[in-house]
Each structure stands twice: as C-alpha cells, then as structure tokens.
C-alpha cells in the first residue's frame, strides 16, 4: 500500500505516544524550559497526544537527555551532569534506546530517505559532513557505549525533535553552525498554520507535507498556532559541537550560483 510520507510520520507518532504522555506528565514536577511549553492538547487527547521528544544517535550528554520524569530526582541528588568538553565521549540519547523509538524509526524510514535526498540537494556539503558524522558515530569509537538501535538510524542528521500539538515561540536554534540548515517537516492533520520568519518579513504556509530548510541559528522562526486538527513538527538538526568532536569542518554557505550552472546543462 502506498502512503503519503506525512502519513507515515503521523502513523509513527502512535508508537511514541506513551513516551510523550510520560514526558508531559513529568513537566509539572520541574521548571520547564521554553522548549517544553506552549502545548495545546485537543479535547480528549486527540489522535497524537501532546509533547516533545528529542532523539540522537550521538550527542553530548546534557540535562535534556535525561528523562523528564527523572529530573526532580537528579536535582534533589545534585547529579546534574557537569559541563561537557570536546574530548568527552558522545552518548546515544536515552529516548532513542527504547522499543517505541525503534518502532518509530521503522515506521518512518521512508521519511528519512526523502529527508536525506532533500538534504543532498539543498545543502550538499552539509549532507556530506552529516553522512560522515553518522558513519563515525556508528563505528562506535566516539561513543561512551554503542546500542543496537544505531543500525536503524539511516538519517544523515545529528538528531531530530518530534513536537506534537505545540505553538513554538520565536527562537533561534543554538546547536548548529550559522551555515547549517535545520530541516523542518510539518505533519499532522491541521487545516491551516504558518511558520513565521520575521527576519524576512515572511510567513510560510505550513500545511502537512511541507518541508522548510532554514538556517535556524541565524533566522528567528516560530509558530503562533494552528487551525483545525492537530499539528506535528519533526525538526531535524545538526550539532556543530558533535561534528567538531568527530573531526569534521563546518559547512560553507550554500550559494545560488552553484545551482545556476545546473539549469543550463
């Protein structure tokens, strides 16, 4: 059966719903960051629930990599992770080392394939470095400990966030290099939504099935809300510190002129 890729993502979210619920239930026990606010659960919880989860095959262990329901314990026991140094090992995110996450990766593999293809076209150098980074992570030498889930990670991106039924304040993303694109995929069932980019005086129609590659470290972007149905965003990101740790350079800016020659062939 052929299916839309956005529908594959919608279906994949069902695997994550228990983890999303658990994360949301824990938010009341801790001081939530801006990334964990602005949720709007539909009546009855809706089809997809509400929440945000972050996944990475290899990143520096930070507080956001701790399960939210463990945060209060960690604060109480003064076990907050120390600042990371570039020589430190990378970690597979806790959220990725679960059976629901494995089911999600299997269900959305075709979304990864198309996302990789988009990346190769819109940001070839970033794609090359992303691919090299994932290959180096998978060889295990840079990881604190490997995990079988890495065999299912086919994306060239450092990780992704799954954001369900949330309005997102204007923000810039800290983790990437200025030259890096983030790849945002709008999914869900909503009827209307806009991605605001005030640095460009632009609002981009953000229907399900839309992709936006945006230099998110430089350009503010956000979503005030949506109309009808439920909203899902899968935001793919590259972590510049991880690429640095792996011995990879920053990508260069992508130039319009690089594509002009292609059209005249």
């Amino acid at each position, binding site marked *: 059966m052929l299916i839309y890729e956005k529908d594959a993502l919608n279906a994949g979210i069902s695997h994550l719903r228990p983890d999303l619920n658990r994360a949301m239930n824990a938010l009341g026990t801790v001081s939530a960051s801006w990334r964990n606010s602005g949720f709007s659960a539909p009546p009855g919880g809706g089809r997809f629930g509400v929440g945000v989860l972050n996944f990475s095959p290899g990143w520096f262990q930070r507080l956001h990599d701790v399960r939210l329901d463990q945060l209060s314990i960690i604060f109480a026991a003064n076990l907050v992770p120390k600042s990371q140094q570039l020589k430190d090992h990378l970690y597979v995110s806790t959220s990725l080392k679960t059976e629901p996450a494995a089911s999600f990766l299997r269900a959305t593999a075709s979304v990864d394939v198309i996302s990789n293809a988009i990346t190769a076209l819109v940001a070839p150098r970033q794609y090359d470095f992303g691919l090299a980074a994932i290959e180096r992570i998978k060889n295990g030498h840079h990881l604190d400990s490997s995990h079988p889930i890495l065999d299912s990670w086919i994306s060239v991106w450092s990780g992704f966030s799954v954001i369900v039924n949330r309005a997102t304040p204007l*923000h810039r993303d800290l983790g990437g290099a200025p030259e890096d694109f983030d790849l945002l995929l709008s999914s869900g069932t909503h009827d209307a939504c806009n991605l605001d980019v*005030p640095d460009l005086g*632009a609002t981009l129609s953000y229907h399900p099935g*839309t992709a936006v*590659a945006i230099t998110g470290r*430089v350009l503010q972007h956000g979503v005030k809300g949506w109309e009808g149905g439920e909203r899902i965003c899968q935001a793919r990101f590259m972590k510049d510190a991880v690429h640095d740790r792996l011995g990879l350079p920053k990508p260069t800016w992508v*130039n*319009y002129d690089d594509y002009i020659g292609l059209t005249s062939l």
Partner: protein
Amino acid sequence: MALLGVAEWDVSRLSDRVKNRRPRADADPAEDSDLAKYFINPELGHLDEPCIIMDVHGRIIVWYLPGIYALHRVVSAY
C-alpha cells in the same frame, strides 16, 4: 508565485550580530531595535509556493518546499 526572495543584508554579518536569547512569547524590542540599525528586513509577505530565499550575496538561507512529502514522491511500499 514567488520563486526567489532576497534579503538586502549579509547573512554572515547578521549571524555575527544576533543574540541567542531565551525566546519570549512576544518580540524582544531591545534586540529588534539593535538589529534594525544595521539590517533592514525584507517584507516577503505570505508565501505558499516553492521558493528559495537568499541574502544580498546570493547565499541561500531558506528553501521552502510545500507538499514535498507527497504521494507522487513515494518510493517505498508498505
């Protein structure tokens, strides 16, 4: 239909200027005012057709691809 949007500033210089502050529900007037001294933002308006947006030197900063995750691009079967 917009195929190309252009900002009349240098994205590299903008990246040197922007501050990565904690997001707020509303705009940050102080930061906006500071940036507005040096960077005049375009007014590209509402976009709903595929396009790219670049800076004054032709560096692409946004690829807008509505509907790209769609049936006619599916290559796998379940």
